[in-house]
């Protein structure tokens, strides 16, 4: 679908100077030029490229300032109604993220309206012109896009109904460019949003899928890979990931990866982004372990421990009573460990 309206703003890092809200903006008429084509490509691909569901945070009274500004922009698209978003971006931007060009693109999406906000890092520069026998160096008072492929974007589809536009989809195409993480700068600071899925919900979904594979799979290799990942998952420091990214980060074999994916219902949620929450993870995939004074260590999934081990208390004993544990099963794995 073609873009019908484009507004562009040059934004500076003003997080430490929030009072300076002046931004320069302009309307760009869509044409066949390179810039329009580049923005058109981003606009057309927004539905698939922007794949991180985000949701505006609320003040508990169903209000969010960015959503309010977005609704005002869609109601009456103009440089003036787009400017508050540019000012907001400026005030969320630190020197590390630097100067940027914000493009606000609006166009039809079937019977609805799509808006795409994209920010490209920009810079001023020095140009050196080499002639046959001399070099001319000059500061160029123009702004350059550092790269047309490195940008952050977010898209929303408006159907004009009441209570719309709480949710959108974001993407960070400059995730490896050393800037502040997308969750902090683009989603939280600028958009006043968060991942649509809470850390606990996403992590619980992941843990339950892994646990479900452990419970149902008869493949020892699959179980080994998942057990190793569960132990190592403690080292994931609140990172934003998807279930598929979790599988890939632990180099799951194709059969283990497939086994996990089939346990995620609905299946699209394997690509749903959330912040990993180690405590939540442990809650759902924890192992209960008890150690006896004879050196034995018994371990089983916490929710199945009492099914795995039958215990009986020795008669007459009260405090620190000796207990007998018994279990029956087929040995599927055996290992020697240096620690418990």
């Amino acid at each position, binding site marked *: 679908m073609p873009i019908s309206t484009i507004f562009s703003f040059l934004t500076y890092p003003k997080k430490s100077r929030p009072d300076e809200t002046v931004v320069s903006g302009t309307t760009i008429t869509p044409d066949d030029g390179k810039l329009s084509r580049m923005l058109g490509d981003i606009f057309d691909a927004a539905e698939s490229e922007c794949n991180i569901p985000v949701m505006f945070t609320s003040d*508990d009274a169903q209000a969010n300032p960015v959503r309010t500004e977005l609704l005002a922009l869609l109601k009456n698209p103009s440089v003036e109604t787009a400017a508050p978003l540019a000012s907001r971006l400026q005030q969320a931007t630190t020197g590390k993220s630097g100067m940027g060009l914000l493009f606000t693109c609006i166009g039809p999406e079937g019977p609805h309206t799509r808006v795409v906000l994209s920010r490209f890092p920009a810079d001023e520069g020095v140009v050196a012109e080499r002639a046959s026998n001399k070099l001319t160096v000059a500061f160029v008072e123009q702004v350059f896009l550092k790269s047309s492929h490195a940008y952050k974007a977010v898209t929303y589809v408006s159907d004009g109904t009441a209570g719309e536009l709480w949710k959108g989809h974001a993407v960070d195409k400059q995730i490896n460019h050393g800037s502040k993480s997308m969750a902090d700068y683009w989603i939280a600071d600028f958009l006043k949003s968060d991942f649509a899925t809470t850390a606990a919900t996403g992590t619980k979904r992941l843990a339950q899928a892994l646990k479900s594979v452990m419970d149902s799979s008869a493949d020892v290799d699959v179980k080994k890979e998942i057990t190793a990942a569960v132990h190592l998952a403690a080292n994931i420091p609140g990172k934003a990931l998807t279930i598929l990214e979790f599988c890939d980060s632990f180099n799951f074999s194709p059969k283990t990866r497939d086994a996990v994916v089939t346990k995620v219902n609905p299946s699209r949620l394997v690509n749903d982004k959330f912040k990993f929450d180690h405590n939540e993870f442990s809650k759902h995939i924890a192992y209960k372990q008890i150690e006896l004074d004879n050196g034995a260590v018994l371990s089983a999934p916490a929710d199945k421990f009492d099914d795995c081990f039958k215990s009986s208390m020795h008669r007459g004993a009260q405090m620190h009573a000796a207990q007998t544990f018994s279990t029956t099963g087929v040995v599927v794995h055996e290992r020697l460990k240096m620690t418990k």
Partner: protein
Amino acid sequence: MNDDALLAEYKLRYHTILQPLARKLTEHLQGSVAGVPRIDRVATRAKSPDRFMAKAQKVLASGARKYAEPLSQIQDLVGARIIVLYLDDVEAVSTVIDTYYRRVELRELVPESPNEFGYVGKHYILSFPEDLFEDDADRTRTPEFFELQVKTLFQHAWSEAEHDLRYKPEEPLTPLQSRQMAFTAAQAWGADQIFQALSRELGVATSLHSNPDKGRRSMPGGPAIRTRPRQPL
């Protein structure tokens, strides 16, 4: 959309989308509060077509309809209620809700004046978790939010009886009847206060919170978490 078309559309959604969604939500909420002690019940319901139409047809003082787009503006098409024993348990459940769900609204409903007694409750408007929607769901017809109420047994009991009594008679309540209603609210409020104090004095809240498994309380005749279909939420 005229009222006949609205009713027809709502009935279709009620049977094919909202009722199944309410059932899924019950399971999701139960799973979320599974470790929280002293949950009396988790109940959900899809708003019945009759009640939906009654709400959709509400008019303002100006005579205009309150809801221009009732299908998207009315946010309790699916409603849920979590009933707990003590006031401290309301806070415990609220913490869990904030962990697992994204909210757009939170209201602590209490009487306007400290000298009044009446409706008390904690109301949320929450975003439906994506887990409840199949990949091929028609998302243009599914609601985005649901209402959740978290209440104590006494708050719940009072609001149910009050709703039944206050809205059934055609005539408004007399001053004496209103005063009697407020008296029962005061008793429910007082009972919650005393039970809260007792649970703290007796260390019930502390001991059970620290041991969720031990704290799971089976209600007579039912499991630790019960569900029951109901209409008014």
